[in-house]
């Protein structure tokens, strides 16, 4: 049980860190390539250690993100819910993929995340440039792959437990 508690501490800390990361100001040149940190890390956990976070976590993270970014309350929450749900549903199929295909799946999920945000912005009548929307999913995928490479040991352990 003690081990279980310990294994809860790291993911929780990672979520707080991601929230902080998504607030840190970036230079103008790279700000349109800011990865959606929360989405990336939630995807990482839901694919490598599924069911550690419930959908409720995704929902609350989204609400906090909405508060921080001043978007419609529920906008990020919905986008996070959808991608985490899909990832958790498909994780048994996805996790046997080789690295490159995993990257593609994550890119697709992050693209979907971005699209949902974009779509809600559009419905709510908020003007948003379209061209800059490509940056975050691409950067996010790279970060996700890096996370996987760095923490690959932990991930294999997680798989072994399944």
């Amino acid at each position: 049980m003690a081990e279980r508690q310990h294994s809860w501490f790291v993911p929780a800390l990672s979520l707080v860190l991601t929230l902080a990361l998504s607030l840190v100001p970036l230079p103008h040149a790279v700000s349109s390539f800011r990865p959606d940190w929360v989405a990336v890390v939630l995807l990482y956990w839901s694919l490598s250690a599924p069911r550690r976070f419930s959908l409720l976590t995704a929902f609350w993270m989204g609400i906090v993100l909405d508060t921080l970014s001043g978007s419609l309350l529920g906008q990020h929450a919905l986008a996070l819910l959808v991608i985490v749900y899909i990832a958790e549903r498909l994780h048994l199929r996805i996790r046997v993929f080789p690295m490159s295909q995993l990257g593609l799946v994550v890119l697709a999920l992050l693209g979907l995340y971005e699209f949902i945000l974009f779509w809600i912005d559009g419905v709510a009548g908020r003007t948003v440039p379209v061209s800059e929307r490509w940056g975050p999913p691409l950067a996010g995928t790279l970060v996700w792959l890096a996370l996987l490479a760095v923490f690959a040991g932990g991930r294999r352990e997680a798989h072994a437990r399944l």
Partner: protein
Amino acid sequence: MAAPARTTTGPVRGGFSMGARFLLLSIACFALMILDHRDQHVERVREALSVVVYPLRVLVDLPFRGWDSIRTNFATREALVAENEQLKRDRLNAEFRLQRLAALETENARLRELLDSQARVGSRALIAEILAVDLDPYRQRFNLNRGLVDGVYVGQALIDAQGVVGQTVKVGPFTSEAVLITDADHAVPVSVNRNGLRTIAVGTGDSGLLRLPYLTNNADVEKGDLLVSSGLGGVFPAGYPVGRITEIRLRPDQSFAEIMAEPASALDRDREVLLVWNAAEDAPHANEPASSRGDAPHASEPTGSRGAEAPSLAKAK
């Protein structure tokens, strides 16, 4: 698929399946968004949440603040002396302008009395610091370290030493969110200082560019013209510099010209801004008990001169 995964779950969850939970939470999201979009029912929730995330904002801001203070602490003596000299010179200059301003102000009031027009009352101002946190990169927004406890209200004008910066859009207890005049959703009523021609400056989403889409091809504007706030919208006090026209492209096939302007204030470099109370808005807030009482009322009649009002305000604070 769910069966093997379920064996790994630690805590006991509610009786719903994952699909049902997903559905319920999505419905909650939609409900929240519709409520948030339609009217202001969820403002209270937002305020409460903004208190919850306040420590996070401060935490992120901390390293930047620390870096600033380290830089100040380790500045060389020569640099400090030079800066001190510069500031003294600036202050002298500002006070000189202020003296002239006092005379002009009384003259202005007298003339207005003669004309029997409503006098523009001097507004209260409060210095707010911009929290070094990034919001949505697609929108020109930022957080301020002042909120309801300081008497800040929604739709309050923000200016800096150079001109109009933006206005507040959401106000929490301790922080508030402001939108820059260059946000794609923002427009500020302006007039050309040279001839009083009124129009509207619309944001572009680029913090160095404003657009004037409602001027015809034969409108009397020139490159370099100063745009000042006209005060028509009721949000921004009249007479503050908004920007300078940088580009005029006449399009013979269309009736409106394409005119671009550069904001007067340093929108993406500011660290401190002034929250300005409108004369009309001031009355209901007059009984606000807050730290703002220390800020003496100060006439902010336009001077057109750069940086004239800021030092005196800092002094008043």
